[in-house]
C-alpha cells in the first residue's frame, strides 16, 4: 500500500516538476508546482508528518502559490519570450547540475544505516511538534515572526513606491 502510494505521488511529483520546466506559460508552471506541492504533502503524510502535510497545503499551495498565480494574473504574464540565451548557463550549469545530482545520489545510495518507512510507523502528533516548537525553539519561532513582519513591511514599501510613481504621473 505504501509502495503504491509512494510510486503514485512520487511520480506525480516528478511529472509536475518536469511539467514546470517544460511548460512555456507561467500559469501552467505554477499549477504544476501546486501539483508537486500537493503530492509532497501526501508524501509527508506517508512519512508521518501530518501537521506538515497540512501546513504544506495551507502555506505553500494555499498561500504562496496563490500569490504567484495572483501576480501572474496581475502582470498578465504571457508565454515566454524567446531571447538570446546565456552560454555559461548551459555550458557551466548543466555539468554542474549533473555533478551535484551524481554526488548526492552516490552518497544516498552508499549510505548504510538508512531505515525504511511503512504505513504502520507512528505519526508525529501536532502536540509533540508544538511542545518542541514552543519550548526548545521558542526563540527562533519568535525571530521568524519578526522576519515575517519585516517581509510584510518590505512588500508594502515596494508596492507603495510603485503606487506613488503612478500617482505622480
Amino acid at each position, binding site marked *: 500500500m505504501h*509502495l503504491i502510494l509512494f510510486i503514485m505521488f*512520487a511520480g506525480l*511529483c*516528478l511529472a509536475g*516538476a*518536469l511539467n*514546470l*520546466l517544460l511548460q512555456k506559460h*507561467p500559469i501552467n*508552471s505554477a499549477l504544476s*508546482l501546486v501539483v*508537486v506541492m500537493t503530492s*509532497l504533502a501526501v*508524501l*509527508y503524510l506517508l*512519512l*508521518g508528518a501530518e*501537521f*506538515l502535510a497540512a501546513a504544506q497545503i495551507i*502555506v*505553500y499551495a494555499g*498561500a*504562496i502559490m496563490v*500569490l*504567484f498565480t495572483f*501576480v*501572474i494574473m*496581475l*502582470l498578465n504574464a504571457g508565454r*515566454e*519570450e524567446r*531571447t*538570446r540565451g*546565456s552560454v555559461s548557463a*548551459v555550458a557551466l*550549469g*548543466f555539468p554542474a*547540475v549533473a555533478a*551535484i*545530482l551524481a554526488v*548526492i545520489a552516490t552518497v*544516498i545510495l552508499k549510505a548504510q544505516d*538508512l*531505515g*525504511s*518507512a*511503512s504505513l504502520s510507523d507512528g505519526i508525529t502528533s501536532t502536540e509533540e*511538534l508544538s511542545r*518542541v516548537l514552543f519550548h526548545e*525553539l521558542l526563540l*527562533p519561532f519568535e525571530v*521568524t515572526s519578526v*522576519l515575517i513582519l519585516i*517581509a*510584510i513591511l*518590505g*512588500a508594502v514599501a*515596494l*508596492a507603495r513606491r*510603485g503606487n506613488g510613481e503612478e500617482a505622480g504621473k
Partner: protein
Amino acid sequence: MIPLSWYLLLSAALFALGIVGFLIRRNLITIFMSIELMLNGVNLSFVTFAHQWHLVKGQIFVFFVMVVAAAEAAVGLAIIISIFRARATLAVDRIDLMKL
C-alpha cells in the same frame, strides 16, 4: 515498506530539477518558482531524516523553511512587480542592467 533512500533520491531529483529550471527558464516568475521547487526538494529530505532519526526538530525545520519561503515570496513578488513596472518585461535576459 520502502527504503528511505527513495525519498532522498526524489528530493535530490526535485532539487536538481529546480536548478535546471533556473537555468533554462527565461521568465522571472518561473525562475522564482524553480527556487520554490528547490526548497520543496530540500524540505522533503528534512522530513525524511526526521523520520529516520525520530526527531521532531527536522519537521520544525521544514516549518521554518515554509515561513521563510512565505516571506521570500512576498518580498520577491513585490520586487518582481516593481521590476515589471519599470521594464515592462519579465524576461531575465532583458533585465541585465543593474539599475532601474
